[in-house]
């Protein structure tokens, strides 16, 4: 096995500009408060675009929680929430958010949060979102709207799916009324067209960047994608992040055209499923000395949203409410196990992946559920090497750095034998 401690993967130069985008987002929030513009907390998976289209400034507490973790503040917030009686086993995003509230931290740079005009949640990704916002809406005494999204399982019939679409659509119309009632703002068609077009373009370029990662060597590593995800959550509908992604794409394409990889000694191509360790983003750097690079993350890909081929740009622009309701029904995390296995198998093939690392996230049931079955099927049915590691995305207490590292190193040795077979 090659063991070159000096090799480092190269981040795209444009990704560095991500800081400006984050800064822009925070400035917009500060400005909204100064000007008395309505604001909303939203959970990921909700149609944030509709908020932008209705001139409501969105804030995503999950995202703020990642900032707390990246700035090494999450543990302190989590412990504050635990002192309040919230269990050790609850989602650490929630606890980070709750701890921020309890401490009164409003500094956005360390993941602080501010009281919003209202809250928007949905159970599309997890039931935690709904309970979390309910707990907080009661504390802050603000209105809370939640969108219920039924899950599509292997026996869901087309008739049911059609009914689900209508059910979600009805809720979105209700939601628009809810916003109008609170803020006086209405959904203007022209504004909605601009916002949804930007969001569509943002998601599509992100997908194109992922397409480039199919190339051997991969031009892009997780150094670009883990952080690069930020605008997909917080700014879908704005123009500037689209420009940033275009620059990232251009740079990655140049690398592909010149046969340059993010990692010069690429040897093993990995997939990482789950939420990264925001409290230790440099953790995976040690992979580089083995020539291993993560070339695909279902999690970062999933938030590009526009994966359902039935949802065209025209449809989105002409009828955003209908399109948004369909998007909510085709979100990666509501797939049943069978579809999930199939998607993984296809991805492993298309991205020429040698091994899959699955993050059994102690915070997150939707992420962790089914991982062992998934692993079993990928290994037994398709001979894809898989490794499950147990940790937590926001709680550093739950990552045993040495133990996990040892397991990953043994896994790479296994990949080496597997490749030689």
């Amino acid at each position, binding site marked *: 096995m090659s063991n070159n401690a000096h090799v480092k993967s190269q981040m795209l130069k444009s990704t560095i500009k991500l800081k400006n985008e984050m800064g822009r987002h925070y400035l917009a929030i500060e400005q909204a408060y100064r000007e008395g513009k309505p604001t909303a907390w939203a959970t990921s998976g909700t149609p944030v675009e509709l908020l932008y289209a209705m001139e409501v400034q969105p804030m995503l507490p999950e995202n703020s929680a990642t900032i707390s973790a990246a700035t090494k503040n999450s543990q302190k917030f989590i412990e504050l929430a635990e002192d309040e*009686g919230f269990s050790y*086993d609850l989602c650490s995003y929630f606890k980070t958010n709750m701890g921020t509230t309890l401490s009164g931290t409003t500094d956005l740079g360390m993941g602080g949060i501010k009281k919003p005009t209202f809250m928007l949640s949905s159970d599309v990704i997890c039931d935690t979102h709904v309970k979390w916002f309910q707990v907080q809406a009661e504390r802050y005494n603000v209105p809370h709207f939640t969108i219920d999204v039924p899950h599509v399982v292997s026996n869901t019939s087309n008739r049911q799916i059609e009914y689900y679409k209508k059910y979600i659509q009805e809720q979105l119309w209700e939601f628009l009324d809810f916003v109008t009632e609170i803020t006086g703002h209405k959904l203007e068609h022209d504004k909605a067209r601009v916002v949804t077009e930007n969001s569509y373009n943002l998601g599509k370029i992100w997908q194109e960047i992922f397409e480039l990662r199919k190339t051997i060597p991969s031009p892009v590593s997780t150094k670009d994608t883990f952080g690069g995800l930020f605008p997909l959550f917080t700014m879908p509908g704005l123009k500037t992040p689209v420009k940033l992604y275009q620059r990232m794409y251009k740079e990655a394409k140049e690398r592909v055209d010149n046969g340059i990889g993010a990692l010069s000694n690429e040897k093993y191509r990995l997939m990482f499923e789950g939420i990264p360790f925001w409290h230790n983003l440099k953790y995976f750097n040690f992979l580089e000395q083995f020539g291993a690079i993560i070339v695909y993350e279902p999690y970062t890909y999933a938030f590009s949203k526009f994966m359902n081929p039935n949802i065209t740009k025209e449809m989105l622009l002409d009828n955003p409410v209908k399109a948004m309701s369909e998007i909510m029904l085709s979100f990666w995390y509501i797939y049943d196990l069978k579809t999930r296995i199939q998607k993984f198998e296809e991805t492993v093939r298309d991205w020429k992946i040698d091994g899959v690392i699955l993050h059994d996230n102690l915070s997150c049931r939707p992420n962790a559920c089914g991982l062992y079955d998934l692993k079993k099927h990928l290994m037994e049915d398709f001979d894809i090497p898989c490794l499950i590691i147990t940790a937590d995305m926001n709680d550093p207490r739950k990552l045993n750095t040495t133990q996990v590292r040892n397991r990953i190193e043994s896994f790479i040795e296994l990949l080496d034998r597997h490749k030689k077979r």
Partner: protein
Amino acid sequence: MDDLCIGTRYFTNMIDESIDPIKAIAKYHLEKPIYSTKIPSLERFNTLRKLIEKYDVDGVINIAQKFCEPILYDHPFMNKKFKEMGMPYLFIEIDYNRESYKQSSTRFEAFAEII
């Protein structure tokens, strides 16, 4: 008195046999006292309060299985509300194993003494 999904809550209200069965079943489910998976927590608390009054309850035990997030989310709220009422409240987080049963029984005994 209990507030378990397959306990008393199951027959708190009955299926109306005089109307269309499908509608009756839907109505039954919609009118049942809410589960911890649903919101708002206040509604659930109000149901519990009514039960407490009706059955002259002296203490409340709330048991959460580890990873039963809905119950875990509600706990601090319930704790606060029961305190305001002056109602003794015992919260236990358990795993499905013998060890945790033993520990719980010790805590039940202590709770009985408090009451």
